[in-house]
């Protein structure tokens, strides 16, 4: 994660927590950012996979039946 992306993630985190009535004081800033960075890396891996636009989500009901 480069410095720009780290800053973008922190901005995302602060804004997203704020609109949900939370802020960084609700937890440990560095630990939350480390977790978010891990999730961003997971997303980066996922977004490079080409899925057909027509493919609908698998709902829990679809999985069970």
């Amino acid at each position, binding site marked *: 994660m480069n410095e720009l992306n780290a800053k973008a993630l922190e901005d995302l985190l602060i804004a997203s927590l704020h609109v949900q009535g939370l802020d960084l004081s*609700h937890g440990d800033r560095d630990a939350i950012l480390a*977790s978010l960075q891990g*999730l961003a890396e*997971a997303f980066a891996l*996922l977004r490079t996979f080409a899925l057909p636009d027509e493919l*609908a989500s*698998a709902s*829990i009901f679809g*999985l*069970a039946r």
Partner: protein
Amino acid sequence: MDLLNCGEIARDVAAGRRSAKESISSGLQYIAKLNPAVNAFTDVLSERALASAERIDRRRAHGEGLGPLAGVPFAVKNLIDVAGRPTRAGSKINNDRARAARDATLVQRLEAADAVLVGALNMGEYAYDFTGENSHYGPSRNPHDTTRMSGGSSGGSAAAVAAGMVPLALGSDTNGSIRVPAAFCGVFGLKPTFGRLSRAGSFPFVGSLDHLGPFARTVGDLAAAYDAMQGVDVEDPAAANRPVEKTEDTLQLGAPGLRMALATGYFASGADPDAINAAALVSKSLGMTKTIDIPEAARARAAAQIITAAEGGALHLERLRSRPADFDPIVRDRLLAGVAIPAAWVELAHRFRRWYRDQLIALFNTVDIVIAPTAPCRAPKIGQTTLAVNGKTAPLRPIIGRFTQPISFAGLPVAAVPVRIDDGLPLGVQIIAGPWREDLALRVAFHLEQTGVARAPLARIK
């Protein structure tokens, strides 16, 4: 004292060679003796258990037939409702919620088979855990070496069975929380197909990934408990409308005739070589020659992580607002990260899940069983935070789910079997079947048990 398995206890009780009360009293004494060292139980329900046992004995005295689990003590992960008790879910916060009005569906079904609930078991907070550690109740400890992790999040369940405190326990598995503790503690576990066993009356973690299932020291016990718990339940919206498909009587069919393959590629890398060797040993013992590549397993794990964080974060949003200091900090900070992620990430993960599930269903048209490692290492030391793999050091917690997350993400059934390749701590291997074919996974597990490749000897607590 005698430490019998479920089948032995039920036969003895049914035949009158021991009473249910003797079975339960003996079990309660053993729990009292061992729990200070293992910390598997958070709640011991002596009064309720003895009353249940006396009812079973009275029924037998009146000539009534008894259920297949008569007098068998069992315990449940403490996210499963027990009437009149707090459903802790490993947390401090949940102690302030209303006590459970009634038992969870699976508890009711096991008791309908005349098993006897004796307690609730320790777990990682809100099931967001692979270690068995818990800052509120202390770690559940691995009975094979109490300085080591039990695994999570159903650590107390696996530890209680490995130590012989109960022959049967229930846990939950969202990303590996039955299979990992089964591997670390050296017992058998079953994660059924998503939707097979009712989750009604359990505290959720990730509704689209949560499963409940049993732990035992023998495959026969695992199958007997699983059979007793099957059945439609309208109270769990994800429970499938499937008939009861009994497995215990099919175990003897074993592995012959099944099309089996060893997972390679992703499942043969990124782990301690011993973990991969355990799967290879199982494959060799089954005479397997075929290998198979599960497509896009790394992306499946990534998608599972995103869905887990998002659903978990959303579930706990109000508690994160109002009581952040009362969470286990490690859990809280990951949930806060989950709260923050964009919806587009989550939707992409769900769409990928659909693609991935379709690929795996197609894969299971060509094979009946896939073999893969369970955990990437043996049980780490309690407090350990990193793991060295191939000369590189990585954070321990996320890597523990490397091999389990891509399988539960597709909802497939898995029998987790304990394997020993030397005199060290146990390792685990996943016996993975296609959707709704728990019977095949259990047959192979039984075959491995009969041939001595998979076994769950009682831990000797030092």
